[in-house]
């Protein structure tokens, strides 16, 4: 009987400690003791994690290469077809060249508002059964990164940094339920909030104006926060895949398909210096510019 008591007591103590930690963490809010503990432990673990990543990554790449080999043949055939098509286009390129020079001029303007980025590699991904979407990148405070900085890649917005150690940083992805980004529709300028839904290919966009015009394939850009933190302005988020309008509601919402493929994140950039001049929505990427590969294969 004494043994039974011991087993129960151990469980009871463990559960009580867990609950105490939980309540302390929830109650303490920002900048409190537990946040410091977490930051210290993250700093201690970062070098181990990075070393392990370097050791293990070749194995992972081998595995993913192997699974992609099956797709590769199909992809080669597609590219060949695309190549023929492109060669055709090249012959009728005078007009295209004129348009390209115009685009160059536009790009110059966009370039004046370009972001200063710190490139980083994704080294860790949070498990999906955690019901939160986070990644670790291999750049930290040594590279000038602080929390609440915009993270993006060539396709568009990825998220913002949260916990930062000397050599790594945790990024809360755009699709996480806690993510909420001020956004506007490119070209129309309608404002609203884009928020994560815990789904990899879907974000909800809520417009402030219930009678604002919004159409499928409209592009969504960030409108930018003060000093560019947590979100720099003019970063493409995604495009509208469907519009929902509920009569009687004060707001209108749309489903947004993000440009970024969140299951294939690898190289990302962290915006350490926001543009001095906000790139106007009109020179931001159009659907064609933002998704060149997709529109060409379609």
């Amino acid at each position, binding site marked *: 009987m004494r*043994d*039974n008591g*011991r*087993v129960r007591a*151990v*469980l009871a103590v*463990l*559960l009580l*400690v*867990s*609950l*105490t*930690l*939980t*309540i*302390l*963490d*929830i109650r303490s809010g920002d900048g409190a003791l*537990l946040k410091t*503990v*977490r930051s210290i*432990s*993250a700093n201690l*673990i*970062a070098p*181990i*994690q990075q070393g*392990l*990543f370097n050791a*293990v*990554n070749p*194995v*992972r790449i081998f595995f*993913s290469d192997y699974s992609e080999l099956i797709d590769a043949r199909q992809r080669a055939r597609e590219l060949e077809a695309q190549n023929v098509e492109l060669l055709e286009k090249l012959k009728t390129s005078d007009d295209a060249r004129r348009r390209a020079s115009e685009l160059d001029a536009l790009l110059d303007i966009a370039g004046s508002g370009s972001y200063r980025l710190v490139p980083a590699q994704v*080294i*860790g*991904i*949070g*498990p*999906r*059964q*955690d*019901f*939160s979407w*986070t*990644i*670790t990148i291999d750049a930290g405070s040594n590279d000038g990164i602080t929390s609440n900085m915009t993270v993006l890649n060539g396709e568009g917005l990825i998220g913002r940094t949260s*916990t930062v*150690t000397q050599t*790594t940083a*945790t*990024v*809360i992805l755009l699709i996480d*339920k*806690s993510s909420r980004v001020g956004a506007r529709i490119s070209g129309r300028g309608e404002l609203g909030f884009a928020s994560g*839904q*815990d*789904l990899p290919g879907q974000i909800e966009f809520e417009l402030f104006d219930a009678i604002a015009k919004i159409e499928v394939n409209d592009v969504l850009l960030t409108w930018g926060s003060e000093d560019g933190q947590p979100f720099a302005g003019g970063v493409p988020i995604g495009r509208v895949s469907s519009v929902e309008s509920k009569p009687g509601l004060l707001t209108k919402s749309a489903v947004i398909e993000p440009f970024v493929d969140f*299951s*294939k994140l690898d190289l990302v950039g962290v915006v350490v210096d926001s543009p001095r001049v906000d790139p106007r929505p009109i020179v931001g990427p159009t659907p064609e510019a933002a998704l060149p590969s997709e529109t060409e294969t379609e």
Partner: protein
Amino acid sequence: MNSARWFAVVFTIFFAVLIQPIFLARLNLPGATIDLIVVLVCAWAILKGPIVGATTGFLAGLFIDLVPPTEPVLGLNSLALSVVGFSVGMLGVKPSKSFFRPLLVVAFASVVLILLRATLISIFVSPIAFSRIFELLITQAIYSSLLAVFVIPLITWLDRKLGPTLRSDELRI
């Protein structure tokens, strides 16, 4: 439990928590991420009983909460995993007697863990959309039982290397 065995428990759990986001989460398999941690907790609980199971689960939960990139509320993973470790230890399955029963237990326990975690997060953090959870449960059960095929014999081997088992290690209510 001698100190060498506790060291082995802590080491295996710590290794699993580190390798999970770096390697297993990046394999991009459909559905849930392969959860080496819960399989390890179950393996130790099956071999060593509820006290070790609950303690291992608690430690694993703490490690998970403190290792980036997960940023949940501290303590929730410990709570869920100690309950799972304790319950698995109480079942008293013997891997020496049956090959499939431990696998079944691990699969079931890992599914329960997801539900438990989802409930706790819903209560303490923010409500979760349970609509897509089914896919997670099915894939988690499959991955966990497949992983257990390798993990249970490995931990059994490790456990034997670390000296004879005391009767008091396997206390059950």
